[in-house]
């Protein structure tokens, strides 16, 4: 038992959970917390907008695979992080958001800067706490980290009224917590794994579909072993991009709306799929009914509610992906099961890949997306971490930027949050200062959180913004060209601002690169200089992202470049 204030107990509890950095912005209702932050060893990153704090915590969480922490004050501070919380929830990212709240006596009286963040955030958090006494705080923090980081990870909100931050009380810090309605550890059913192996071996055209769950659980080695032992081609979801090295002979890349042509083609032809940590989102599989036709689905997921949600499964294995795949690897070794690569299906897979490699028409512009992103790949060390914004550039990154080192590619795939990539890259840099971090960006998306340049510069978290600038909201423009008979509205961003000057005004480095050669040089300069750098690359506003599976259609209806 120790006597201390609520704010102090929060800080001690955070330190006990290993949190050494928080992203946030102070305000009236969380000043007691900041006063304790002043006295603690936790590093504070001052953001320019709370939304960025939540994205930074998200980026930090995805890369370090432990919850990133963000702070915001009550009212508008709290509502500003709602987008970040929703983004983390949609992509199962571990995050702890701590908001200040008006004093308990003022709650419900429409006080200044009061918002019902518990009510507002309910559908988009994994859980939310509102401790009403100081004594609750240590246990609440412990539970928050436990809930956020176990099972299917997600954001947890802790909303602390100002008087609860200020009051003093005797507190104890539990070393363990139990929550009777929460059972994140489920042992995968061994018999079902055995049946899966039989089903995969009995099938003629098996495919592995690797989702975000592989990255979250870090099951890269297990996935690769299984693919190699059974010689099964691997496609991924967009969230699962980079769960399997994209230069591996069995890799086909992401499926989906803007998936690789060969991945979509092979997915449609498959007769059995081992889906690992994928939720069969509409963007990945197209129409649900068409996808499951003539396909045997083995679904591994840590979240039982995902089983059968969008697709009918033949075998369901509930449990951590890494644990499930590890059991499968052991079984394959024990039974000495191996499949030869010399079979008609793999031949078909290789031919399909080769066909599209030879025949897929790429945009002819000298700064076509494929050329630009392949140059980035060529210049960037393979262990570098890459995030993306949301839009055309994101889908081009999916198509043309191969992830070599597993678990180094992150994007807002579920919610599709514009403005995510740059702050998330800063959070990633905080988690991994030893590797280069690049945000593959479009200017429309970058505009939304570009003021984080101040953070990247002042807090010594240098990231590279690789800006594919088409002077417009490119994805919307593409849809207006494709589905709205070229009635272009609300997409023209003009050439504003000048991103080189913008970067410079923040004390960052701005480089305009107007040829593939200049791009290579600019990336090298950025890598060497170790200061925040924006590389502004003027691309062709007319380039579409292709292939394209139109919404409401199936993967087999993929539109190819003509």
């Amino acid at each position, binding site marked *: 038992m120790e006597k201390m204030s609520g704010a102090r107990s929060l800080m001690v509890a955070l330190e006990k959970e290993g949190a050494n950095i928080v992203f946030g912005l102070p305000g009236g209702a969380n000043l007691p917390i900041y006063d304790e932050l002043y006295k603690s060893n936790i590093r504070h990153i001052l953001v320019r907008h709370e939304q960025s704090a939540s994205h930074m915590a998200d980026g930090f969480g995805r890369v370090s695979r432990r919850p990133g922490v963000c702070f915001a004050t009550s009212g508008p501070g709290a509502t500003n992080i709602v987008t970040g919380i929703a983004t983390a929830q949609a992509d199962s990212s571990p995050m702890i958001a701590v908001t200040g709240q008006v004093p308990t006596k003022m709650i419900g009286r429409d006080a200044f800067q009061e918002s019902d963040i518990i009510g507002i955030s*309910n*559908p988009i958090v994994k*859980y939310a706490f509102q401790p009403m006494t100081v004594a609750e705080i240590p246990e609440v923090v412990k539970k928050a980290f436990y809930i956020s980081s176990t099972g299917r990870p997600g954001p947890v909100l802790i909303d602390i009224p100002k008087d609860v931050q200020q009051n003093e009380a005797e507190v104890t810090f539990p070393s363990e917590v139990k929550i*009777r309605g929460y059972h994140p550890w489920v042992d995968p059913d061994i018999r079902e794994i055995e049946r899966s192996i039989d089903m995969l071996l009995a099938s003629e055209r098996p495919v592995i579909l690797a989702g975000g769950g592989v990255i979250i659980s870090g099951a890269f080695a297990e996935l690769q072993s299984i693919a190699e032992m059974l010689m099964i081609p691997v496609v991924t979801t967009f969230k699962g991009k980079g769960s399997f090295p994209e230069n591996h002979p069995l890799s086909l890349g992401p499926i989906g709306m803007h998936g690789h042509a060969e991945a979509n083609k092979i997915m449609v032809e498959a007769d059995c799929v081992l889906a690992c940590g994928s939720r069969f989102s509409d963007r990945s599989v197209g129409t649900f009914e068409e996808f499951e036709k003539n396909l045997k689905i083995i679904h591994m997921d840590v979240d039982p509610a995902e089983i*059968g949600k969008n697709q009918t499964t033949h075998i369901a294995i509930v449990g951590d992906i890494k644990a499930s795949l590890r059991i499968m690897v052991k079984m394959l070794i024990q039974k000495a099961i191996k499949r030869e690569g010399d079979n008609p299906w793999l031949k078909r897979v290789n031919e399909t890949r080769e066909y599209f490699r030879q025949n897929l028409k790429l945009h002819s512009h000298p700064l076509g997306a494929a050329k630009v992103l392949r140059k980035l790949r060529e210049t960037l060390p393979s262990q570098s971490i890459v995030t993306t914004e949301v839009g055309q550039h994101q889908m081009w990154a999916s198509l043309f930027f191969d992830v070599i080192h597993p678990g180094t590619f992150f994007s807002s795939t579920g919610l599709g949050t514009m403005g995510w990539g740059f702050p998330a890259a800063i959070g990633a840099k905080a988690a991994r200062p030893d590797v280069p971090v690049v945000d593959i960006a479009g200017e429309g998306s970058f505009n939304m959180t570009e003021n984080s340049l101040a953070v990247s510069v002042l807090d010594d978290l240098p990231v590279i913004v690789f800006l594919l600038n088409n002077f417009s909201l490119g994805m919307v423009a593409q849809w207006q060209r494709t589905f709205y008979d070229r009635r272009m509205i609300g997409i023209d961003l003009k050439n504003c601002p000048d991103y080189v000057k913008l970067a410079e005004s923040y004390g960052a480095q701005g480089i305009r690169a107007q040829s593939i050669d200049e791009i290579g040089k600019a990336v090298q300069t950025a890598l060497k200089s170790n200061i925040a750098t924006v590389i502004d690359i003027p691309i062709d506003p007319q380039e579409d992202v292709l292939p394209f599976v139109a919404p409401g259609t199936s993967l087999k209806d993929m539109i190819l470049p003509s």
Partner: protein
Amino acid sequence: MWSIISVLVENKPGVLFKVTNLFRSRNYNIDSISVGITENPEFSRMTITTSADEKQLSQIVKQLDKMIDTVEVKLLDEKKSIYRELVLMKIKILKPSDVMEITDLANAFKCNVHDVRRSSIVVEITATPDRINAFEDLVRGYGILEIARTGMCALERGVGNES
């Protein structure tokens, strides 16, 4: 076709909101809900009836189970459960003989009669939805002025495999 879901939850503020918000956000409908404290004051039991197809129902149960504040979620089998609803019905009285007739019907349905007045009578019926509907049909001719229903309340029969 309606189904009955019995949910044991943490008895604390906001849990009812979370459960109903889950139904709303995933576009499921609640036909009725009744909530009350259990033998252990730390828990409340919610009995929810919903009209959903089999696939939806399995999702509802899984999503409820996933909620951290739910301790146990059971889809009740009608044959293996006892389920009742309490309904208060205010019925119009036009002539003195109506009172006698309605009281007779009420007795036949084991209902309690309350608050007999010159122009209205209140009947309390606790029964399964089928019986409540049957009673409602019989008294509809007199004119039903107001109805209040509690929503279904249900328990599984027996303990463990006994049911």
